[in-house]
């Protein structure tokens, strides 16, 4: 059965680019014609607090929050935060935690971790490549666009071990 709404939970620690990652997915879904909602709390994230972002897209989305056991995908940027975030994942949902270490190896600049994780996520989602490319252009300034495109493509093309 074709899913009506996709739920993706992002989490980690302030300064890891989590908001940017969820922004990238949000724009890609928007360009692909979906209704999108994204929710986060960033009150004190700049001070190293936990950061959590929820992105939901589909034909029609109501709640901006994903309930426990409802996430189809979990993108955790920091191993310490994983136990806290794990309850969001639904039974049979995809946890990208095993990919975290590979993503870190894959990139030269730690600031690209967010793009690597979203690139991996892209391999699972029905969003078209053109929409991803448009989203990358929207979210990243020209100076760092090419390096992010590269990381995104590499992560998306990887095969799961």
């Amino acid at each position, binding site marked *: 059965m074709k899913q009506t709404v996709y739920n993706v939970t992002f989490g980690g620690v302030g300064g890891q680019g989590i908001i940017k990652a969820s922004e990238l997915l949000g724009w890609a879904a928007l360009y692909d014609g979906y209704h999108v909602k*994204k929710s986060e709390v960033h009150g004190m994230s700049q001070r190293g*607090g936990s950061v959590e972002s929820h992105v939901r897209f589909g034909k029609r989305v109501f*709640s901006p929050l994903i309930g426990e056991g409802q996430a189809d995908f979990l993108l955790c940027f920091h191993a310490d935060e994983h136990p806290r975030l794990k309850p969001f994942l639904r039974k049979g949902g995809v946890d990208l935690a095993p990919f975290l270490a590979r993503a870190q190896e894959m990139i030269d600049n730690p600031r690209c971790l967010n793009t690597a994780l979203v690139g991996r996520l892209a391999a699972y989602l029905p969003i078209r490549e053109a929409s991803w490319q448009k989203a990358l252009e929207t979210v990243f300034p020209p100076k760092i666009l090419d390096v992010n495109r590269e990381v995104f493509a590499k992560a998306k093309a990887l095969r799961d071990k």
Partner: protein
Amino acid sequence: MAKKSTVKKSFLSGNEALARGAWEAGLKVACAYPGTPSTEILEALALFPELDVQWSVNEKVAYEVAYGAAVGGVRSLFACKHVGLNVAMDPLMTSVYAGVNAGFVIVVCDDPLMHSSQNEQDTRWVGIYGKLPILEPSSPAEAGAYVAEAFGLSERFDTPVIVRMTTRISHSKEDVAVGPRKEQAAKKLEKDMRKYVMVPGNARARHEILEKRLDKLRAFSEKTRLNKMELKNTAVGFLTDSVTYQYLKELYPDASFLKLGFLYPFCDEKIKTFAARVKKLYVLEELDPFIENHVRMLGIKKAKFKHPSYRTGELEPGLIGPLLAGQPKKIKPRPGRAPRLCAGCPHWSAFSVLKKLDLFVAGDIGCYTLGALPPTSALHTCICMGAGVTFNEGLRRAHPDGNIVGVVGDSTFVHSGVTGLINAVYNRARGIIFILDNSTTAMTGGQNHPATGRTIRNEPTRALNLKKLCEACGADSVDVIDPHGNVKELEALVKKRLAADALSVIICKHPCVLLKR
């Protein structure tokens, strides 16, 4: 997927969508003091070059400047967080009597669960207390649409209008249809003393007009599509507002709804009609029993309400099931990382000295509130903006010889600390006031303020000199010191000033570490 649409869409937060909607509605002047979760409204408005936008010194000033512009004849907006509105309540309460000329909208962002606040007061009560209409969007897209609506209503009913948001709406994003700006012709400024000079004789007449206006608003509330009845399966009906509507729609798409977008004054007849049409009626809202109290007053017997344990914090999808089952709230703790002062933050040095000298430190609102957390644990009160200064005085009135000092940030000092300093000088208080000057409004993300010498658009302006200001207030001494990596010198200075029977100001000046990024 890919449905082609001709509508131009953007991915906007509730705050950005609200700013966009206000701009499209012909807004001219906007004022605010930064405060999470409302800060991004002014930041987004500042990107439109045709607008006159400012960071004001505090919320009272912001309110008065924006309201003055509306009386002057152009559409204007004041934005604040819930506790910011407390500072602006003085002008608010009487501006409702006088009314407006061009549209005036008050945007208030509440913070259920206190993601970044000192309380979770519920602004909806201000509708009753202040006697003015409240619109409540439930999503970012609605925030943009409702603010435009609010400007029209403000002019039609000659009243300030509140648009009430919450963190969940301000800080969530959605694809939002964007359109062109509709310019509004400026209205004539007339000398209408009976309307704008609120001396008793005039204000008595205005109060009568205000009560009649509320009747008209009540009638409007019955008709407006902002109060939307969605009758589907009538076995269950939800009377609700704000983001709670979205959670319920998600979980019970086939139920019936009465969604209060024009929250106050209430649409009594519509509520009664809805109650009669549905078998079971649930009244669901975040925080206080605002709608609940009114429904009880209407005597609707079948209405079911939430357990009082849900009056604190946010609602979220996972809580709705137990809530409807009548169970008290059970919070599953999901411990996150606590925020702390950044590595390299200049406040570390100041707090390490305060801790070492084992002083009682009165504090208030800003990054330096984090000085209360381990490892420094060197801040002992935090109630409201500016109170670092006044609490030093109050505590010393109880303990004249206590080892008591006060800390306040640079932006907070300008906001409401300086009045406390003048009071301390005037009433011969003693102690040390530390202005922890990191040259920005750091906690809300680094906004300019009068002492940075830059405007909201980062344009140069005349900089307020904090040292001269404190001297002019009459402090016995004003020292400026760079605390960063200079702990010994700072400690010696603090000891010297503590030993003097005087009112001292020590400005610890070093820029916020995030400013360089």
